């Protein structure tokens, strides 16, 4: 089994953005941790706060963001929130790195890819481009790029979408970081390419033992990759658990909704695709009590009075709900 050594620990992370119509609470009291070598998926709709949470870890949110005082992100024992820019610079791209959704717009169109991959090596290890060249070729081989020597001088527009995302992965892994944040790494790619990229990531994870924080709204990707799942809704974590219990026995009605809105080929073909009614609440006017109450079919008076806390359950997970689901949902198990 894995050694359960904590790499990253986020505690009471709370952040808001000042806007002209008041402060928008982007994330509210988010706590979670990532162990060494673990792949944790952060799941949620757009606007659920998953990207803000991830960008907080690498310190790349817009500078206007304001963190609450007791927010704490501890990485290898160092607090990243209070860290000075010059120290943070040594961590970014070196110990924590990130890959993004759209590899074409995330690569500089005017620089050859070899130089772009070499940049973090030059920066953090002080090597010249010539000296880092061997490492770059090695990285390109690892992410499965054929004839890497010939690709060094190629520009992003000369490569396919899958190749570009491989380049991004090579760039992120250039300095052997211990945490990789992957923000919807396959969303912008063709389905056939998605599987290839996930394979590359999984292989590299096995080889290097890197921890991955995977942000996605694609439950297929979650099932394929993750050890543990965090479900976010309205800026809060509403459910946490290992990937099997989440898929087989979701406790939170929102998680259940997410799982049942995945289209299925087997069975139930006469049924229409299920959706979660309504939309994500406006972060400027969050309801009193549970954020999900307006869209939840199990909601009672209690839900509109008090917001539920994230509490541990018997399945070794956590859920924030007054009426956590009990029975195993057959329709859902079909998916896994």
């Amino acid at each position, binding site marked *: 089994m894995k050694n359960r050594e904590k790499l990253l620990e986020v505690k009471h992370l709370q952040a808001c953005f000042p806007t002209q119509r008041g402060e928008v609470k982007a994330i509210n009291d988010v706590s979670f941790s990532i162990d060494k070598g673990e792949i944790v998926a952060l799941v949620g709709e757009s606007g659920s706060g998953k990207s803000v949470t991830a960008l907080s870890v690498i310190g790349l949110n817009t500078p206007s963001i304001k963190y609450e005082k007791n927010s704490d992100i501890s990485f290898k024992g160092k607090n990243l929130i209070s860290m000075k820019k010059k120290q943070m*610079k040594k961590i970014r*791209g070196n110990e924590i790195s990130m890959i993004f959704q759209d590899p074409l*717009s*995330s*690569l500089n169109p005017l*620089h050859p890819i070899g130089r772009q991959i070499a*940049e973090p090596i030059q920066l953090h290890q002080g090597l010249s481009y010539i000296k880092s060249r061997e490492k770059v070729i090695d990285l390109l081989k690892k992410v499965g790029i054929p004839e890497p020597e010939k690709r060094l001088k190629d*520009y992003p527009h000369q490569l396919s979408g899958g190749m570009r995302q491989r380049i*991004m992965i090579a760039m992120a892994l250039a300095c052997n970081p211990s945490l990789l944040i992957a923000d919807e790494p396959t969303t912008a790619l063709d389905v056939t390419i998605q599987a290839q990229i996930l394979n590359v990531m999984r292989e590299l994870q096995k080889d290097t033992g890197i921890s991955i924080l995977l942000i996605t709204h694609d439950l297929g990707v979650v099932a394929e990759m993750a050890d543990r799942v965090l479900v976010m809704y309205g800026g809060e974590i509403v459910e946490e658990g290992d990937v099997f219990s989440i898929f087989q026995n979701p406790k939170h009605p929102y998680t259940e909704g997410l799982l049942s809105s995945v289209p299925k080929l087997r069975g139930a073909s006469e049924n229409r695709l299920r959706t979660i009614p309504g939309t994500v609440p406006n972060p400027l006017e969050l309801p009193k009590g549970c954020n999900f109450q307006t869209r939840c079919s199990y909601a009672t008076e209690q839900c509109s009075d008090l917001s539920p806390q994230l509490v541990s359950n018997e399945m070794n997970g956590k859920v924030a709900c007054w009426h956590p689901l009990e029975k195993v949902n057959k329709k859902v198990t079909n998916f896994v």
Partner: protein
Amino acid sequence: MFFKFLFRRLFYVIPMLLITTLVVFSLILLIPGDPALALLGDNATEEKLTLLRAQLGLDQPIMLQYWSWLTHAVQGDLGRSLFTGEFVSEAVFSRLGVTFQVVATAMVISFILGLLFAITSVIKPNSWIDYLARFFGVLGTAIPNFWLAMILVVIFSVNLGWLPATGFTSITEHPVGFFKSVLLPAFCLGSFGAAQITRQLRSSLLEVLESDYIRTAYSKGLLLWPVIWRHGLRNALLPVVTTAGLLFGNMLGATVVIESVFAIPGMGQLAVHSILQRDFPMLQGVVLIMVLMILIINFITDVIYGMLDPRIEFE
């Protein structure tokens, strides 16, 4: 590949030159006034005037005049001045260097000031330096250059006596003298360009700094300055290259005024004299060379663009 591109671009230049010279030729004849009258004076008899017009070929239809000018021009003969008898080609080329030195200096000033203002204003948005840069952007565009020229002459030449008010020294003759004589006119020409470049670069830099690959650059651990220097500036300069090409043409036109104010013996001054004297062959020569220069600059702009942006291929 590149030579094919070069060849094709040269091919475009020929019809371009034909059209522009024809238009200019026709426009010149619309200028009120008669060169024969200007040459012989008000007391000339009608006979003498007719004779002179016939000698100069001015009595022929426009198309014929243009044809005869064109056939000579392709052989390198741009004719002679109606007044001094100088060869037009010699007169124009002797002044071309002067104008080129002034405009090139103005271009350098535009770029230095533009880059300086744009970058500082982007680094500290909504700071006093940002407001100063934006104010300069409006001011440089709005102030007429001849007015600026006169104000600067009053301050730096008349009152302070630091710089000469008129005249020009070539860089090959006396570099320090060149610098002194070129500073005021080049600044007057360049202030508009600097303002344009500031505005353009500021907005394109702001746009570029919002893009995904800048976020990637930060995620590698780069800080603001290296991000701007390595990833922001080159991308942001792409639209500026186009602006700079247009500016060059703009400045060339503005030399007509600036060279007159500072009494610089360049193309602009030659153009003004030729118009005042109705010296048509000379004026046609000046315009031809100016058009040629602008076409060359457009070509250079395209080449620079292709060098900066690998997505553009020379086809």
